[in-house]
């Protein structure tokens, strides 16, 4: 089933005003507010964040993708270990995967050393973790469907038939 048009619009621009959303969807502003509140209540909308091109920021944060193989447990499979790992604030995103490894982690640290320490001192020793493979990210080209370098500007003729 297609996603609700309101969610599609918020995915594209979470800062769109209620008034504009109402006009786009042909509903009242009150209804827009009520539906967003309902989605928050149901846990469908989990938050609103800015999408940053961190390459343009003067930070030295380091990001890495970590593949983790873990031992499933009799009751609960991967969920208990996964829940523990996801609580580390260094872990920005985490997914259970099919294929050669089980968990895929997106991790942030202040330096290469810090991320390496996190892997060797915190993740690898965890009971149930069988192996880790760490890949450092060098450059972001696209994130959440958004190109990090701006698209070419609008070069259409200013008036045409």
């Amino acid at each position, binding site marked *: 089933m297609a996603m609700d*048009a309101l969610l*599609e*619009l918020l995915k594209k*621009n979470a800062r*769109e005003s209620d008034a*504009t959303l109402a*006009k*786009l*969807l*042909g509903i009242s502003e009150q209804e827009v507010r009520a539906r967003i509140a309902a989605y928050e209540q149901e846990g469908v909308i989990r938050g609103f964040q800015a999408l940053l091109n961190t390459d343009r920021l003067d930070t030295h944060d380091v990001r890495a993708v970590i593949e983790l193989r873990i031992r499933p447990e009799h009751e609960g499979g991967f969920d208990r270990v996964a829940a523990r790992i996801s609580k580390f604030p260094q872990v920005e995103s985490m997914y259970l995967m099919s294929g050669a490894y089980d968990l895929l982690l997106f991790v942030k640290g202040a330096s290469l050393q810090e991320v390496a320490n996190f892997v060797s001192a915190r993740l690898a020793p965890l009971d149930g973790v069988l192996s880790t493979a760490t890949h450092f990210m060098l450059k972001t080209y696209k994130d959440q469907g958004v190109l990090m370098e701006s*698209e070419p500007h*609008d070069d*259409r*003729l*200013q*008036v*045409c*038939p």
Partner: protein
Amino acid sequence: MTTDSKSAPDFVAPHVRSLPKSGIRDFFDIVAGRKDVISLGIGEPDFQTPWHIRERAIEALERGATRYTSNLGTPELRQTLAAYMRQSFQCDYDWQHEILVTVGVSEAFDLAIRAVLSPGDEVLYHEPCFVAYAPLIRMAHGVPVPVETFRKDNFRLTVAELEKKVTPRTRVLLLNFPNNPTGATLDRADTEALADFAIRHNLLVISDEVYSELTYEGGRHSMAAIPRLRDRLIFLNGFSKAWSMTGFRLGYACAPAPLTDAMMKIHQFGMMCASSISQTAGLEAVRHGDKAIAEMRDSYHLRRNFVVASLNGMGLDCFMPRGAFYVFPSIQCTGLSSKEFALRLLNEYNVACVPGDAFGACGEGFLRCAYATGMEPLKEAMDRMRTFVSSFVH
């Protein structure tokens, strides 16, 4: 040197010299070069051509598929278009004899009109309309006969108005729905009535349905879906609008074999064939473009809601158009002419819209606003228009 030596302007044929320049062109010259203009004057999608289509064009270049094709267009593309016509409008066109791939719908229209008109033949067409029709009819030595459409009818073409203008010299009824510049569409009863009218007066119908895929409500009602019209219909469509492929210059015509053959004669001498690279891209577009089209259509649909609500909210009366990406609000409440309104909006608020009279005299009192532009500029444009209009409307 003789006394009646000619200079360059004298070489221009009288019927070309007398051809007026497009009203859009006039306005383009005023807007061109100005900085920071938000333009709602662009009859072209703001979306980039979907990547998978561009990727196929690149691949065609890599493969070296850069030769002439059959005059009619590549067999693969024509076969695929025949299947598209069947699926979209339940009509059967033989890909070998009844489909011609052209350089945009504009060429297809030019071919159609030149193939069927004798000097002095009259062509009924509705105004406000796309700027190219009347000039091309004239270049084919035909007589353009405009038929007004009205706000009260949501700019649908009515048989009552047609009956007032039809004469024994009328040969062709030209249709363009969904319509540029009004966004008007036809419903089933309209297409049936127009078909009856054409048959009653023994006319050929040329139907330019380039905005057909951009229909938001009420269903797509094509003249091609009316079997009894088949023998007297030239159906035109193209890739520019729905697939966002303007620069590829790709269109096509579907018509009974004798008509297709007549158009092909002119096309083979004048154009040879449409760009081979564009044809490869077009094939990809028809075969695999449905999802991309749907996403763009959904986006236009929402923007249309926004623009219509905004315009009506600021006091500019505007019906809810069901197709294309234009709205055609009335600016009569301001007391300004279309040109005055558009010029002042441009000079004072840096927003460009095309005056309605550029699309025919009966477009006076209206403005064409294209919403094929991003939400941020669209919002800003509506804010500026609101400020401008509020100085007239209380």
